[in-house]
């Protein structure tokens, strides 16, 4: 069981009210997942949070890349939310029998050999990845649903961009911003630079793009088989 700070029932109850108002639509009334938000009772971030140092940061800053807005709540309100989320996690983890939500054991329907074949063949995974290279130990770093999500779309994979200004040398760096008007990168020295798109040529190298192209090719069996194989890469 995770080690959480102890809170009074009053604080937990206040957190429950705030949770219903601000969080429940996405994360579910019981924090077990709702419309688009993850199941917080299964969250590693929640189980490794002692007294709001991690959860509080997410509430304050949001997760704009994942669609979570930041919330302008007071420290006291955040503490009560933390208390509620901890208590919901403790409740869920104390349950006996099959829990609601996605368990690692739910994702074991695939065929390892078929998955390996797909990896090296039709899926084209081996074009970019190697089980002994970048993917070595991937099944140790991630498990279950988290591993499957990473496998299907590694949303944290950074893109590179090469920008060629009309005058001056070509620059390559990590893509920092892109819309139809502006492109920006962080160069090898950590400096952020941006340009109006009309003034430069640019080329994005997005490693995750190949994953997007696979979405309309997979069958559900392909995914389950691939998962069976990826899970062996400890």
């Amino acid at each position, binding site marked *: 069981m995770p080690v959480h700070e102890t809170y009074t029932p009053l604080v937990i109850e206040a957190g429950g*009210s705030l949770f*219903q*108002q*601000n969080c*429940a*639509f996405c994360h*579910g*009334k019981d924090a077990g*997942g*709702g*419309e*688009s938000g*993850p*199941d917080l009772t299964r969250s590693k971030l929640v189980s490794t949070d002692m007294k709001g140092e991690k959860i509080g940061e997410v509430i304050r800053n949001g997760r704009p*890349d994942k*669609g979570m*807005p*930041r*919330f*302008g*709540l007071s420290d006291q309100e955040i503490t009560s939310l933390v208390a509620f989320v901890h208590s919901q996690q403790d409740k869920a983890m104390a349950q006996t*029998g*099959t*829990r*609601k*939500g*996605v368990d690692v054991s*739910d*994702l*074991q*329907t*695939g065929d390892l050999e078929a998955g390996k074949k797909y990896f090296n063949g039709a899926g084209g995974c081996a074009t970019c990845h190697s089980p002994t290279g970048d993917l070595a130990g991937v099944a140790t770093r991630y498990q279950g*649903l988290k591993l*499957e*999500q990473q496998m*299907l*779309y590694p*949303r944290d994979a950074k893109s590179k961009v090469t920008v060629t200004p009309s005058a001056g040398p070509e620059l390559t760096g990590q893509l920092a*911003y*892109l*819309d*139809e*008007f502006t492109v920006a990168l962080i160069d090898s020295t950590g400096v952020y630079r941006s340009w109006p798109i009309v003034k430069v040529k640019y080329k994005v190298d997005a490693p995750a793009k190949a*994953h*997007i192209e696979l*979405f*309309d090719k*997979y069958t*559900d069996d392909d*995914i*389950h088989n691939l998962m069976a194989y990826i899970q062996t890469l400890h």
Partner: protein
Amino acid sequence: MRLLKGALLLSAIALLAVRLPQALEAQNVDRAMLTRPPKDSWPAYHGDYSGRRHSPLVEITPKNVKDLTLAWAFQTEQAAIIKATPILIDGILYFTVPDNIWAIDARTGHQIWRYTAPPNKAFHIGQRGVSIYKGWLYYMSSDAHLLSINPKDGKVRWDVVVADSSKGQWSTMAPLIVGDHVLVGASGDFDNLQGFVRSINPETGATQWQWDATLPVGTPNKTTGGNVWMTGTYDPDLNLVYWGTGNPTPVLNGKPRPGDNLYTCSIVALNPETGKLVWAFQPSPHDTHDWDAVEVPVLVDGDFHGKPRKMLMQASRNGHFFVLDRTDGKNLLTTTFGPVNWTLGIDKEGRPIPNPAKEPAPDGRLIAPDEGGLTNYRSPSFDPKTGLFIVSAAPSYSLYFAKPADGTYGWAGADYSLWSKGVLEAIDYQTGKIRWSHELGDGRSGAGVMTTDSGLTFTGDAAGNFLALDTSTGKTLWHAGSGSHIQSPSITYELDGHQVVLTSSGGVLFAWRLPSVSQ
């Protein structure tokens, strides 16, 4: 002395001008005005009854839009993002975020009054605006009460309960007002509850009728749900109101509710006097992916394959674009406007046939679009000149899970979006083919769409840029970074003889106009 005389004369003229009867005073918002809104108003959520979100104004054009300049910005100083469509009556804008209503001067953007609701525990996910009729505002509170509010000072005249929020319903919608009927509904699919449209007397708050989308809770083998949480549209000639209904419950587990689950995920035509169902069409039979069919039922009169038709068009959350004959609900066209992988085809009535193998399962199913849908509640727009139905789309993929332990109540499963992007799609309604696409960036845009008769399309991208595009080509003609997420569509109106475009982003409203108008 001459100078003083002149000044006196001027002030007399000014006084006269102020005293001149104005066609747009709040008490004069009646059926006729809501049917044909004057140019210097935006008196209801969709602007007019048709839901086309298309304005006849032409001062701002594809040629001069690049010169748009900020007239003012209004800061709510709230964390809540504005999801409301403001209404404009008599030079005053009324708009909301959950538990808050503001009246602000459309000339300056300064606050006239602000109403704040008493604290309540309901979901506070959004508020889409107030409605006005014969001198009173109508507001749905987060905890699903309907309030009648005085537009002069924000004081509450009456407050009636529409749904019991302690059971799990809440509210976000701007009411639809048709004659002496204030039409409302509620949200709430975390519990197995009945969706409904209710008609309320604008004077007294008394219920006139209620149409239930589904059978009473507890009816064996029957679905619950079908919440009506968006503002409907209205055809005054046919005297029919059109609404989309929400998804069935339990949400992701379809086993306890076999069959089509009428009237969930449906477009329904109701008689506004009686609440009687006249026809229904179901975009998502037996939905198991939370794809409410509440997206705006847009009413268009025009040619369809050589015949004049009274049509209803919907770009639905489930990824399909439908054209119906709105006199009888018969399907004229069904097509997709992005990646869709959950059907076995289209049936003879034009409805998608759900593939049972794509129902949520214990080991997960890859589904396009994701639960947020290929589009959602943000308004699309219909441009009559080009015949384009323009919708902010989100091509997307997700994983859907459901297993016995998830139960048969409320959500009853889990789903996780994997990836999405925003694209503005301009659909030719005669063929369903996409004439142009405009990429809006990774993630998705919540900006919705508005078009004008001068050939402009106003929208926003996923990065928070306000955009004005050429409606015929989709090319960008103007943009401005807004500094936050855009979650509501633009409106436009004439103020002091000149066109204004009003946009919002984060907790801020922005009023734009041409520089020649600056004082």
